[in-house]
């Protein structure tokens, strides 16, 4: 990427016309692992949106006759149940497909909570500094003083177990990550000339923060958001596994694992497939996040 550094002086047309977005997309394309991540994430997004068309069965439909049927390659497998059934005779494949929808929903909701609150509080702390900064960042330190899964468990313990409360808890525990990133970037950008110029033109504080400063902090936020999806999905599955998130019969991967725990002696498939889905979804977002970091972070450019 030698043309990036010399883009202002070079006359090479192919370098000149490239926007920062195109540049990032190109770098993302070159990074194989990130591409794999993007494909995995796209597949899960597809499952989440169109799952009800793909799933061969109703994920909640029970049947005593098809109880604990193994996957199709094993003896005694039942027709029409590719990955077998659980102890209520529900189709495992349909349940893990519907699980994608719940996990994506968890990702969107809890990441939105932490992103919005984290960004606003981080921007305020970095922009106004002084005691506001100290107060906000102290609160963030306190949230960071407890291991995040423990804090999420404790929050859900007091709010009561449900998927909704699990999403709130996971959202709250990740607020400090976003606040720290935004505060750091705002502090860095604040002293730059373009901010002072905009201020001299009479821009209000809100306008300065949201229209001038924040767009320049986007890169690390995008990376953190992607990685945040990964940890939100993982933490929500853990909470549901512990019985503190999604409640049965919801086809949530972690809750499915919890239900299958008692069956590990008889039906390994009930605990195997939901776990693979969690692993793949989290891996996809982690790969994409790592790749985006390489693509967007100018400090890492070669």
């Amino acid at each position, binding site marked *: 990427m030698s043309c990036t550094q010399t883009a202002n002086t070079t006359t090479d047309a192919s370098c000149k016309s490239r926007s920062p977005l195109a540049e990032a997309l190109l770098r993302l394309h070159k990074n194989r*692992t990130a591409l794999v991540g993007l494909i995995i994430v796209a597949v899960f997004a597809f499952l989440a949106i169109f799952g009800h068309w793909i799933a061969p069965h109703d994920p909640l439909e029970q049947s005593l006759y098809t109880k604990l049927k193994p996957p199709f390659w094993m003896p005694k497998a039942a027709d029409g149940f590719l990955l077998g059934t659980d102890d209520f005779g529900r189709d495992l494949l349909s349940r893990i497909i519907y699980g994608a929808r719940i996990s994506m929903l968890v990702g969107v909701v809890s990441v939105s909570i932490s992103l919005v609150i984290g960004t606003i509080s981080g921007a305020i702390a970095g922009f106004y500094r002084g005691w506001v900064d100290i107060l906000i960042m*102290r*609160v963030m*330190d*306190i949230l960071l*003083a*407890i*291991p*995040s*899964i*423990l804090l999420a*468990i*404790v*929050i859900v*313990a*007091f*709010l*009561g177990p449900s998927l909704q409360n699990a999403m709130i808890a996971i959202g709250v525990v990740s607020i400090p990550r976003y606040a720290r990133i935004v505060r750091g970037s705002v502090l860095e950008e604040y002293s730059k000339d373009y901010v002072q110029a905009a201020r001299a033109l009479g821009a209000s504080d809100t306008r300065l923060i949201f229209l001038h400063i924040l767009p320049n902090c986007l890169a690390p936020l995008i990376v953190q958001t992607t990685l945040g999806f*990964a940890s939100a999905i*993982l933490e929500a*599955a*853990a909470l549901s*596994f*512990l*019985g*503190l998130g999604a409640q049965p019969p919801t086809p949530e991967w*972690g809750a499915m*694992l919890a239900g*299958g*725990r008692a069956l*590990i*002696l008889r039906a*390994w498939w009930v*605990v*195997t497939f*939901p*776990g693979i889905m*969690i*692993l793949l979804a*989290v*891996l996809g977002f*982690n*790969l994409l996040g790592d790749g985006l970091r390489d693509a967007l972070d100018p400090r890492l450019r070669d």
Partner: protein
Amino acid sequence: MLYFILKKLAQVIPTLLGLSVLIFLMIHMVPGDPAEMMLGERANENSLRELRHQLGLDQPLYVQYGKFMGRLVQGDLGRALRTNEKITKEIKEHFPATLELSMVAIIIAIVLGMLAGIISATKQYSIFDYGSMLLSLVGVSMPIFWLGLVLMIIFSIKLAWLPLSGRLSYDIVLEPITNLYLVDSLLQGNWAAFKDALWHIIMPAITLSTVPMAIIARMTRSSMLEVLRQDYIRTAKAKGLAPRIIHYKHALRNALIPVVTIIGLQFSILLGGAILTETIFAWPGIGSWLLNAVYARDFNAVQGGTMLIALVFVLINVLVDITYAWINPRIKV
């Protein structure tokens, strides 16, 4: 150095104070009446009033917090409502199990993680490098509660090599000294108990070590690669030193500095992971104790337990900072 340590400790005080307010206020997050939540719908008015009084919920907020803090600074966390035992006593009983599990897990993670990282860096772009980096990517994305179940299916149920759960078989007798079973059995020369305890700890420790191992491997690799690019390494090569001496004597020392910080940060992951691992393997530690308190709606125990874990966690972080300053003289003390 002493000034640095004191400064670090002083910085912790506001965090701990804030933490105590947060944990104190948590009981007021319970929708409706906590006493009703804890006793259920069929509780009579007398027992509700009794419990509210016991929890101090019938007093003004600032009085409640004052009492909470007053007890806290005396090291009194109150009593667990399920058992009516002192919370500090219950935690003391369950702590060694978690400590033993975490220690074995972090040792596995450090040894294997650093080894994989060093070999990957010295043999960059080799099959081993690609393989171990792929594995470590899978490792950081691993739902360990699932990994634990899969290990159980393979090693306990299908192969019957390792015991399914618990810390010790029922027929093994072990005199408690430290309550770290591996240490106790060694101290007493009780080899049967040592072997039994070791066999029990292997699966939970491997499960718990997965994520830290992956992180340590990645960090060791990138830090080592960075050091290997520096001039003094080239000088050593030009001098004709053997690659092994360059890698292990010259490069490793400097590469380890960021790795030590990362290892310190793993305690957060270990504590969180311990809750899940202990639940799966019926390991009688702090994690499963706290979770049982959550299930029983024993808010007293949850508050006390969280406060103590947070305190330990904050102090560990201070220790990590101090160690870091000690091994890296470039940090201004």
